[in-house]
């Protein structure tokens, strides 16, 4: 043991003498672990929230019975089923507004509530009595308490004038949910004697068949391992994970570069240790132990940084998930033990992967070989051919995925193959360019410039690969976001056709508002819509009812349309389908869709396909009058008003005064548009932040590679200095070389990035969200990114160059004195 410790001490002495190399190694590991762990922390937080939601009082984790026609279930049916031996428990669900904000109200019946409902708060003893006995209790998550702007014990007033029972915090609950006794919920939601669904406990014995107790009115919904929310948000989390993974690998490039150089510099030391009697096995073991120890330290620091990154990104992620999918995620980061363990594990695994080639070399190390501090650079040239062959193989895989792949995973696989192939082929392409330069060079210094750049290439290639990947991802994602932004804005202009939008708290007040508006001369038209929800082929689908108005015909954006599409909509036997639903259910123009309605199946012909960005659910648009005929219970609480521009402020003020509406219930078009754009921008804030992080890590990779190479460059530079080239001139030449290869890498990153953007737009977005955007190229943005790459390279090259320019002549002279 003592022997091993001595060897460890000797090996570690290298880091004391080369602190910059140690810093490089640690920075690489910390960056890799931090970005990966940060993203994982966010994903874990979200998944934990989905699990809580799914396990709360009859979420997707619980089996349940629902009405076949999607309508409410009479309470008598619950009693009948209980008597027939079915362990069912009723739930009433609806939405209520408190202070203008909408919450999900769940009414439960605690006596029959099955034990299988997961992490629902237990209601026994005193808790049970407090919950069911008047005035009862409203169970909420701590986050909901904050959203309600109320203290525990308070009884907030809801929009219809009723009051909720006193609030009580239950940490197990998800945000946005209010849980009350079923009787309270039926009263508040005005659903006396009605049940939304029946939760099903574990069936003991043999109850009477469902059909004999309920006829064909109910259907069984099996518990699902993956909830609808999880399915919808999978792509978002996959996106984050892909970014985390990319940053992780870029970080590992730094580690690989640092360990490779350290290994080569320590070769003489390793041979001396072997010559002095350290066995190969012991030496290799100690090398691994040293690496694991460093990875452990870096992993812990990386985890702390990862926590900070996750905490910084979480608000934007929460906003994105709410905006895109309606998912409620707590804004406070809570981390579990396995996150810490996984973070340390990934750091150690990453270090071992990055050091694998060096460790293999150490294992195969011949104690007699002459120490050649730069042999690795020469050896890497031999890898160029095999690396290029590997690149071609990876491109072939990309082609296969493009041709045969038909899933989101295949889309990401294609992206990964494209980027990996491009990274692998980069050194070979650079080598060709530099060789061409060398052939054309005539002046001796120019000849040296090209020849030395070639020699330097192998040392810089990993950092340049990291730069290429980071830039390509930046170009790809920025192009996609910009394309999306433009498309979204023009789509928003078409969709927000009305001048003022009003959302009434309930149907009664909506009727009163409409009546009041109809008497005002400053309102040209009131466009009342309606929304109902159904299930079609197992998919949740929203039915949007639109009034027949010229404004929609003129401005509502349609992607594909049948002849006289809007006219077909009026009688109620035609519908438009949202792009994502048309892809999910493979619905095309002319197809017939059968909608389950309370009065029987409603068949509609598809007359148009429209974009519906940002809506996680599929949507069918029908005429509002037809919707009301088939779904008479549909509330018509939302309306758009056509108002002369100058009269908008006065009308809004009057509406607020007359009906006590707040900012959220009445807004003009500009406000709604601004809010939509704000949500859009926030959705992509995470992407931008991760983009910047990745580019930052690539910049660090370049800096650390240049710094670690700087010392080993002295033997190449000293002879030039000796024959009369000044140090500042040498530094300028070195800077020019770095910028030249960085520029070439950036120029290569542009077509690669555009290819990445195309994959994101044409494959990943379509599979993930169901919409395809037009592909645009933004030359100014590309020029900006090349500029950023050059600035990052300049910043990375500046420090080693300044050191060279200021280097004492004695340092350069040492090259000759030390017989290196």
């Amino acid at each position, binding site marked *: 043991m*003592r*022997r091993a410790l001595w060897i460890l001490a*000797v090996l570690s002495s290298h880091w004391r003498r080369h602190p910059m190399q140690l810093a490089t190694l640690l920075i690489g590991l910390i960056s890799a672990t931090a970005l990966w762990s940060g993203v994982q922390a966010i994903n874990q937080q979200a998944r934990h929230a989905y699990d809580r939601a799914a396990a709360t009082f009859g979420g997707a984790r619980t089996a349940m019975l629902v009405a076949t026609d999607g309508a409410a279930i009479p309470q008598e049916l619950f009693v009948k089923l209980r008597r027939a031996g079915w362990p069912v428990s009723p739930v009433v669900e609806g939405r209520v507004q408190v202070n203008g904000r909408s919450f999900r109200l769940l009414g439960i019946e605690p006596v029959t509530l099955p034990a299988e409902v997961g992490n629902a708060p237990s209601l026994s003893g005193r808790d049970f009595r407090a919950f069911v006995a008047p005035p009862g209790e409203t169970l909420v998550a701590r986050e909901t308490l904050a959203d309600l702007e109320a203290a525990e014990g308070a009884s907030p007033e809801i929009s219809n004038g009723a009051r909720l029972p006193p609030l009580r915090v239950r940490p197990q609950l998800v945000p946005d949910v209010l849980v009350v006794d079923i009787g309270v919920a039926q009263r508040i939601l005005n659903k006396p004697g009605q049940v939304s669904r029946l939760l099903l406990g574990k069936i003991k014995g043999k109850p009477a068949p469902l059909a004999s107790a309920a006829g064909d009115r109910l259907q069984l919904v099996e518990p699902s391992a993956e909830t609808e929310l999880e399915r919808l948000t999978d792509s978002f989390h996959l996106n984050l994970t892909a970014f985390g993974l990319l940053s992780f690998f870029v970080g590992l490039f730094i580690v690989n570069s640092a360990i490779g150089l350290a290994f080569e510099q320590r070769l*003489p*030391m390793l041979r001396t240790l072997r010559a*002095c*009697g350290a066995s190969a096995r012991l030496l290799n073991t100690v090398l691994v132990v040293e690496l694991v120890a460093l990875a452990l330290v870096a992993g812990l620091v990386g985890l702390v940084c990862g926590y900070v990154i996750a905490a910084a990104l979480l608000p934007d992620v929460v906003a994105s998930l709410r905006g895109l999918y309606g998912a409620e995620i707590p804004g406070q980061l809570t981390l579990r033990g396995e996150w810490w363990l996984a973070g340390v594990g990934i750091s150690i695994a990453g270090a071992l992967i990055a050091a694998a080639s060096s460790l293999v070399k150490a294992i195969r190390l011949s104690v007699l070989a002459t120490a050649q501090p730069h042999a690795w650079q020469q050896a890497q040239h031999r890898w160029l051919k095999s690396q290029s062959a590997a690149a071609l193989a990876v491109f072939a895989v990309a082609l296969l995925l493009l041709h045969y792949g038909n899933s989101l995973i295949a889309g990401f696989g294609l992206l990964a193959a494209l980027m990996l192939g491009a990274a692998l082929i980069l050194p070979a392409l650079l080598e060709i360019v530099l060789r061409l330069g060398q052939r054309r060079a005539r002046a001796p210094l120019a000849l040296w410039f090209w020849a030395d750049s070639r020699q330097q290439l192998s040392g810089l290639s990993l950092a340049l690969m990291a730069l290429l990947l980071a830039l390509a991802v930046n170009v790809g994602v920025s192009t996609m976001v910009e394309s999306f932004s433009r498309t979204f804005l023009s789509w928003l202009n078409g969709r927000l056709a009305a001048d003022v939008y009003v959302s009434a708290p309930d149907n009664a007040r909506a009727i009163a508002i409409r009546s009041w508006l109809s008497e005002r001369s400053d309102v040209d038209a009131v466009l009342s819509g309606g929304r109902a929800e159904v299930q079609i082929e197992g998919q949740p689908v929203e039915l949007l009812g639109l009034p027949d108005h010229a404004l929609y015909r003129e401005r509502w954006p349609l992607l594909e349309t049948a002849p006289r599409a809007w006219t077909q909509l009026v009688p109620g036997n035609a519908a438009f389908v949202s792009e994502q639903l048309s892809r999910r259910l493979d619905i095309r123009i002319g197809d017939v869709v059968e909608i389950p309605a309370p009065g029987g199946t409603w068949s509609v012909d598809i007359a148009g396909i429209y974009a519906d960005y940002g809506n996680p659910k599929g949507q069918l648009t029908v005429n509002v009058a037809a919707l009301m005929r088939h779904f008479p219970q549909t509330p018509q609480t939302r309306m758009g008003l056509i108002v002369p521009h100058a009269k908008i402020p006065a009308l809004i003020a009057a509406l607020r005064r007359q009906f006590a509406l707040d900012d959220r219930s009445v807004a003009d078009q500009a406000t709604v548009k601004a809010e939509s754009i704000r949500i859009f921008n926030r959705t992509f804030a995470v992407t931008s932040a991760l983009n910047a992080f990745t580019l930052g890590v690539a910049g660090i990779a370049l800096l650390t590679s240049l710094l670690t190479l700087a010392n080993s460059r002295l033997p190449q530079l000293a002879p030039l200095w000796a024959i009369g080239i000044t140090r500042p001139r040498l530094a300028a030449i070195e800077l020019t070389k770095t910028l030249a290869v960085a520029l070439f890498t950036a120029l290569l990153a542009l077509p690669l990035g555009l290819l990445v953007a195309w994959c994101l737009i044409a494959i990943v977005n379509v599979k993930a969200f169901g919409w395809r955007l037009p592909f645009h190229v933004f030359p100014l943005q590309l020029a900006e990114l090349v500029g950023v790459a050059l600035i990052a390279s300049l910043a990375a090259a500046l420090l080693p160059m300044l050191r060279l320019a200021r280097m004492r002549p004695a340092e350069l002279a040492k090259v000759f004195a030390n017989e290196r």
Partner: protein
Amino acid sequence: MLSIRNLSKTYASAGEPIHVLRGVDLDVEAGERVALTGESGSGKSTLLHLIAGLDAADGGTITLEGSEITGLSDSARAALRRDRLGLVFQQYNLIPSLSVEDNLAFQARIAGRHDTAWHAELVERLGLGSLLKRYPEQLSGGQQQRVAIGRALAIKPSLLLADEPTGNLDEATADDVLALARDLVARTGCGLLMVTHSLHLAATLDRRVTLHAGVVT
């Protein structure tokens, strides 16, 4: 103490076998100081590497203090170098990241035989007292070689193997370093087998053997 019988070694170069050693016989007694001379490429260093267990022989035997070392495993050969052999190379092979003091002590520490008094004596005899905190790159060639000799002798080896230890030094420094080595070898009572091109230096040792065409003459 060291007995070599019929030792052979062949290398392949450009597909052609090169018979470096063709049946070498050699004995070194305890405390004996032997110079190994020969032309460049005659196999002197190869012979030294085989004795040190840095390379494996193709045939023949090497016996050190009664134990045959030719058939030892890699780990056993490492233990042999660690505990019983001292090696000095022309290129010094000091560890650049360790101070002079740590370089002197580290083989003895790895062997678990660090002797403070002997360490202090070596420091004094080698004249390294004022250089202990320096690093190899801050030393002259002669100073570095003195550290290398000290490191090799710190374990009080049975046999000191030196491969052109003065090859990088000027004549005066070489004489000075070799005189120190001779004194310390005498002090420890170990054997010395030194490869050298210098007949002048070879003459200062007890015996000289010459390697020619792969055999000792």
